[in-house]
């Protein structure tokens, strides 16, 4: 539906977007995920037509669009701060784009009614933007774009201004809406949780470039670089060296001993330096030294972060500057990790827990 081909955009000497290529399918919920300054918003604005490309092409539904102004593109956008017209009421905001499409008046009114119903604000037609809450403005912005039946809906950090509960509710609604209408959604967000929850696929951006495009599970389980591994979820990183050959290959982690590899990093051979990444929830903590087969490493609980349903323990390990983060389920009755600061523990992990990456 959208093809971005080798698109670059620079502002003077700043290269905001560098040689990005993406293919977004019809009906897909696609996200651009990145920290601020990663170029994701610039890329969205280039697709919407608010900025021209410095080089490259943008195809929407097979048609080259990089030189068309925004009002000629079959896409609509939900803006970061909604951009509800303050001089119009809710109905007129939603109907704003309809006259251009040649929709007759009575039909316009019917479509607006339908949209008000859809966003669950049927009584709010006569209200002004200033009389709406953030969540309501959000819905009006959505209705105003969707009533035009665009081929693609762009969403620029649409939930950023909402509080947590409302944000989670709107996430579910967005996803449901997208499924029902079958419109391609392209979301820009810096919130990795939001990207993982909503998207069919996610493109992670850094320094103006796309560094990985994958499904949410793909990004989480198989990050291909330290940047992606660190940005999506939390992660422990260890410097390591590959030892041995074939099925007997092991990762020798500085200070933490050896661990057998389970088919990861097939292309690497004896002596290669690598970076081993392990998710906090892939590590196990035990109060006593566990039995083999898995090697274990002694450490000391340095801090405990209680998060309600789960908790994260930071374990200091000899020979390593940063503590290792370990996630554990919080127990309701007797929590074995309550007041565990300073306690001696053993860290264990299985071979499948390790993600092998290029060293820094």
């Amino acid at each position, binding site marked *: 539906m959208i093809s971005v081909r080798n698109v670059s955009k620079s502002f003077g000497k700043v290269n905001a977007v560098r040689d990005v290529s993406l293919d977004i399918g019809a009906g897909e919920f696609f996200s651009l995920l990145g920290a601020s300054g990663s170029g994701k918003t610039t890329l969205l604005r280039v697709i919407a037509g*608010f900025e021209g490309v410095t080089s490259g092409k943008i195809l929407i539904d097979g048609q080259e669009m990089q030189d068309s102004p925004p*009002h000629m593109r079959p896409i609509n956008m939900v803006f970061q701060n909604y951009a509800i017209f303050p001089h119009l009421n809710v109905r007129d905001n939603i109907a704003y784009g309809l006259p251009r499409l040649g929709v007759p008046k009575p039909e316009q009114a019917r479509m607006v009614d339908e949209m008000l119903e859809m966003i669950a604000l049927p009584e709010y037609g006569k209200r002004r933007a200033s009389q709406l809450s953030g969540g309501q403005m959000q819905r009006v912005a959505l209705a105003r774009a969707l009533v035009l039946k665009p081929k693609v809906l762009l969403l620029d950090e649409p939930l950023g201004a909402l509080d947590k509960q409302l944000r989670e509710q709107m996430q579910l609604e967005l996803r449901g809406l997208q499924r029902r209408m079958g419109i391609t959604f392209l979301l820009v967000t810096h919130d990795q949780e939001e990207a993982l929850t909503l998207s069919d696929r996610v493109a992670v951006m850094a320094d103006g470039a796309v560094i990985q495009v994958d499904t949410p599970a793909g990004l989480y389980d198989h990050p291909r670089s330290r940047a992606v591994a660190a940005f999506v979820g939390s992660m422990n990183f260890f410097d390591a060296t590959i030892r041995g050959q074939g099925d007997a290959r092991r990762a020798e982690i500085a200070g933490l001993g050896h661990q057998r590899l389970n088919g990861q990093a097939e292309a690497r051979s004896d002596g290669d330096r690598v970076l081993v990444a392990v998710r906090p929830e892939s590590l196990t903590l035990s109060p006593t030294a566990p039995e083999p087969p898995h090697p274990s490493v002694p450490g000391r609980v340095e801090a405990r972060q209680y998060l309600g349903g789960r908790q994260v323990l930071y374990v200091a390990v000899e020979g390593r500057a940063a503590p290792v983060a370990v996630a554990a389920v919080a127990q309701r009755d007797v929590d074995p990790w309550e007041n565990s600061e300073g306690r001696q523990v053993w860290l264990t992990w299985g071979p499948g827990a390790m993600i092998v990456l290029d060293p820094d």
Partner: protein
Amino acid sequence: MARYTGFHRHNRPLALYFGAFAVFIYLPILFIPIFSFNSGWYVKFPLESFTFYWYVDLFQRETLMRAFWNSVRVALFVSVFSTLFAIPAALAIARYRMPGKAPAVSFIALPLVLPGILMGTAILGLLNWLDVTLSLATVTLGQMVICLPYAISVLLPRFIDVGRVLEEASADLGDPPLRTFFRVTLPCSLPGILACLLMTFTISFDEYFMAFFLSGAEITLPIYIWNQLRFPDDFPSLLALSTLIITFSFVLVFASLRLSGVGDSVNQERSR
């Protein structure tokens, strides 16, 4: 020991200062309406008897009425045209990246600080050289030179407030630039545009230098007043006229400040 009432407590010295300030500014103006209702010819106490005579007298002076309507016509033209010309200028300054913008904006604002007598002389010289006959039209042109920078400076903050995002939203919903201007930019900045019209109208109505240098046979109200000052027995009528003008100007300026939102920040501060 006085009780501590908080960081933003009332400040007596500042209140006194404000009082003195108000007296200094408005006391002279206060004399004008007082003596306009006095039956004597001279501005001196004690007052004689109360009268509306000078107000009635105004409407019997044909040259005055003529000058008044001249002023209104000129002010209408000046306010409408300087606002019309200022809209695209202010919009361009508010919206577009362009090289040398900051110095260009300062340059546009220069007539605000140039002495009126210099501008008047300069424009008169130019018109003489071009062999243009002086008339109300030349007064209008001269006053537009003065009003344009005012108009731009009134409109500019309004256009910056309306913001690029609303215009982008309109474009995104399918409107080409001109439609976007009429459906979003203009209605959203309407208060600022009205304020601009009122402000430039007031400036033109009171303006003296351009009217003095550039008028021909037809004169405007300030010139009329200046001419009549030579005749002492006309003075009370001038006071009556001035009272009407002051009242009218106050209403206009107050309305334009309300519209352009100057008082808003003060009110917000108070409600906090």
